[in-house]
């Protein structure tokens, strides 16, 4: 079975290489600063001990105070997994895109952009995927309707 890595120990190792990247960590997940996300993700993918070569899914969550993007990572070689989170404000929802690291994030980031209104900076083709052009509002936000 896939081993879920403990967030705190990963956070310590991330902090050694990229200081100030970790905002918060507990045994289930690690919260990363948005502007350092790309560096952390490249570190986790390239470092031999981690080898996170597979992105299970990208999810957007609305917590009313802030918006959150959740990344489920898995290493197919080492058979372990990790949950990364990134928070952004509702006023300026911007998160760097990870399409350059994992291509599979492409459509899922577009979905989050469409339904939650989070802009993924650096995405090659960021446009609506489910709703039609001219649709007003972000239907999966809590304050919709």
């Amino acid at each position, binding site marked *: 079975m896939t081993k879920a890595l403990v967030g705190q120990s990963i956070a310590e190792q991330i902090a050694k290489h990229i200081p100030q990247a970790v905002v918060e960590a507990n045994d289930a997940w690690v919260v990363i600063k948005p502007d350092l996300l790309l560096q952390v993700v490249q570190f986790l993918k390239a470092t031999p001990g981690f080898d996170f070569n597979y992105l299970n899914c990208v999810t957007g969550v609305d917590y009313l105070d802030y918006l959150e993007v959740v990344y489920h990572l898995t290493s197919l070689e080492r058979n372990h997994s990790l949950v990364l989170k990134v928070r952004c404000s509702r006023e300026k929802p911007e998160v760097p895109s990870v399409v350059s690291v994992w291509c599979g994030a492409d459509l899922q980031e577009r979905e989050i952009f469409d339904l939650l209104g989070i802009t993924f900076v650096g995405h090659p083709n960021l446009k609506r995927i489910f*709703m*039609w*052009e*001219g649709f007003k509002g972000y239907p999966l936000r809590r304050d919709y309707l």
Partner: protein
Amino acid sequence: MEVEKPRFDLFLEEMDQAEGKEIEELIARSQHPLPDQVEWLEPGPRPNLLVTTIDKVFNWGRHYSTWPFGSGLACCAMEMVPTAASRFDQARFGMEIFRASPRQADLLIVAGTLTWKMARALKLLYDQMAEPKWVVAMGACAISGGTFAHSYSVVPGVNRVIPVDVYVPGCPPRPEALLYGFMQLHQKIERRSVRDEFILADLRKIVPGRSKRN
């Protein structure tokens, strides 16, 4: 009848913009359900022998050859498929196989949730079907939007977009229910009269857009 033509002279962003605009227009003009086709419930004065004989021949032919065009939009399609398979076998009613083209079909079975984005395509397919044509709305979503009636993207009932002849309730309905719906449709076909077709065809010329079909 005017058929909405797809445009192929646009590219990507223009195409998206045009699509969005068309969907907005479709929503704006589909705020109220189209009236049900219920004229067959109240038959007029009995026509003469010649008309009834012709009716009988026409209706016999149409009754036993309603070829369906399945638009399996959601999970109701999982019930529609066994209706056509050997256990329930809709071929007993002369509904031989599901046609892949609207041009060859008489009956549109809307099986599942219709979204506004899909509504345009469904309306196009309906318009492409040759007269005479019938529509069966299968399942709660096709009838009224079901669970998603107040959703941001779901059409609250396909009768907003195309006129419906028979509603088959259920979530999803069993194949038996769908077969019963077909039988009701057959009764409806039996009540048709060529006379009505001509009268309604004339009406349509006088009042365009009153009724898209007879």
